[in-house]
């Protein structure tokens, strides 16, 4: 195995420190007993976490976000499974164009999408609707599910499905008993990535959330424009914990590098 040079090692170390240091500091600040954003010294306190859990707006938004992220991730995966199947297996005109279309939300700025959807929603009277907010999230997170499912299905040996058919399985039974279990890593991986991306989305959501549907990132943004106190750090620490846990699960069942880099 080639050894890394000192320069490369230093560079990598710096990148990692640069990426992680803010997170570590935020998480540490969350435990401060003070009223200002300061690192805890020898005394640690959970008072800011307590404050989060007793803050009705934050709790409502947290539940909103959880609910929004899980429903939109589920819908995205439900859409992405048949689409990815058609794209990886079908032989029809415009297959490449279709794949590009499904992945295109990745390159549209969320800011632009937010403004556009705000106009659309007020036009059709959908402002404040959780359902339409969910659809907007589905729009921007589906590419992640697509990407993972396409790589899970590329190189999939279809004779296994032929075997199931030859043994008398109906097409539906074949899908449930054979196809789905074989692409399950892609399905779960896609769902978790969608969940994280929806849970984290701020830029677009600012425009299209109404008071009853405010998500956690939007709530944090609103709170931060008014006052900065360690409660923000506590919320951030909670989000970091949630995301890290999801990433850990993802890594356990599928291998994070495979999920994010893809197999194509």
């Amino acid at each position, binding site marked *: 195995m080639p050894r890394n040079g000192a320069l490369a090692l230093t560079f990598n170390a710096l990148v990692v420190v640069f990426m992680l240091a803010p997170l570590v500091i935020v998480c540490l600040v969350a435990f401060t007993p003070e009223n200002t954003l300061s690192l805890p010294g020898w005394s640690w306190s959970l008072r800011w976490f307590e404050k989060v859990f007793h803050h009705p707006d934050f709790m409502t938004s947290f539940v909103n976000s959880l609910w929004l992220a899980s429903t939109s991730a589920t819908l995205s995966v439900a859409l992405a499974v048949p689409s990815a199947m058609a794209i990886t297996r079908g032989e029809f005109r415009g297959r490449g164009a279709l794949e590009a279309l499904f992945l295109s939300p990745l390159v549209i700025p969320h800011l632009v999408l937010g403004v556009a959807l705000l106009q659309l929603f007020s036009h059709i009277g959908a402002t404040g609707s959780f359902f339409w907010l969910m659809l907007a999230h589905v729009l921007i997170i589906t590419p992640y599910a697509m990407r993972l499912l396409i790589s899970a299905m590329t190189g999939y*040996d279809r*004779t*296994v499905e*032929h*075997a199931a*058919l*030859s*043994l008398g399985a109906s097409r539906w039974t074949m899908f449930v008993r054979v196809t789905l*279990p*074989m692409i399950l890593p892609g399905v779960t991986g896609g769902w978790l990535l969608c969940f994280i991306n929806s849970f984290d989305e701020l830029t677009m959501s600012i425009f299209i959330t109404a008071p009853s549907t405010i998500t956690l990132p939007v709530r944090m943004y609103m709170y931060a424009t008014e006052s900065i106190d360690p409660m923000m750090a506590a919320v951030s620490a909670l989000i970091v914990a949630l995301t890290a846990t999801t990433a850990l699960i993802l890594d356990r069942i599928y291998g994070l590098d495979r999920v994010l880099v893809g197999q194509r």
Partner: protein
Amino acid sequence: MPFLELDNLTKQYGHLYAVENVSLTVEQGEFISLLGPSGCGKTTTLQMIAGFVEATAGAIRLQGRDITHAPANSRGLGIVFQSYALFPHMTVAGNVSFGLEMQKVSKAERARRVDHALTLVHLDAYADRYPRELSGGQRQRVALARALVIQPPLLLLDEPLSNLDAKLREAMQFELRNIQQQVGTTTIMVTHDQAEAFSVSDRVVVMQSGKVMQIDTPYQVYEHPATDFISRFVGKTNMIPSAPGHPQRHIRPEKLRLVAAGSGRVNATVAERFFLGSQWFYHLTSDLGELTVTIPNDGSAPQAPGTVVGVQWDEANMRTLAEGRA
């Protein structure tokens, strides 16, 4: 009424014929091999019987029933795929049990039949393993058990032994034949390996460019090939020039004998000599052109390169073939 009948079966892709007017009748319990080089249409023929490829024209009749356009999952055939196509997320027992579950066989009956099928292929001790924990030969036997457990009227084998190493392949050939004879299932195997086709089949169907060239017993195919192409495809052969206007004559290398110079039908010089273990393989140059001769390694001293020898044969072993059909 034949057990299985292919009646002018044809598959066309655009203007290209993958399979053209293939007709074949198979009797119950027969072991038939479809033999030919890659691209000869043998696999497409098998896939049409299996129901994975839709026939363009012609008919497939199984036990008198027309199944030409029946969906694959209604045909009830046992299929062993080249890649084995085992379900990776199911155990060996789970794989074998799948077809019985589809037939809604009761749990107790399923367990009994799975056990019986695994015993047949000597894998009863591996029921709880996953396919990834098995060797190539074991996977192949799981695939065979999975195909046979549903007691199909017809067993289809798609290059079943091609992923195994030489030694295992030979052992599996005999095992395959044994199992087939025990169970008595009518079998169609696709292969490009003539030795494999010869050793296990009752009859061989030689295919070339989508067409059937010859249907015969292995011995007849080897000894009396219908065309020049078949003669070369199923073994080595020597072309003996004949008088102008007469058909080409062929003789197999093992039908030639080396004798003392001057006492054979022709004299030849040993150009090269290869040792193959059980036999010697000679390249000779003679007035009849280049000759190849195989001599059993019976312990006698081989001829050295450069030696002039006589070549002898029985005229009865000489074959005359229709020309230009290669």
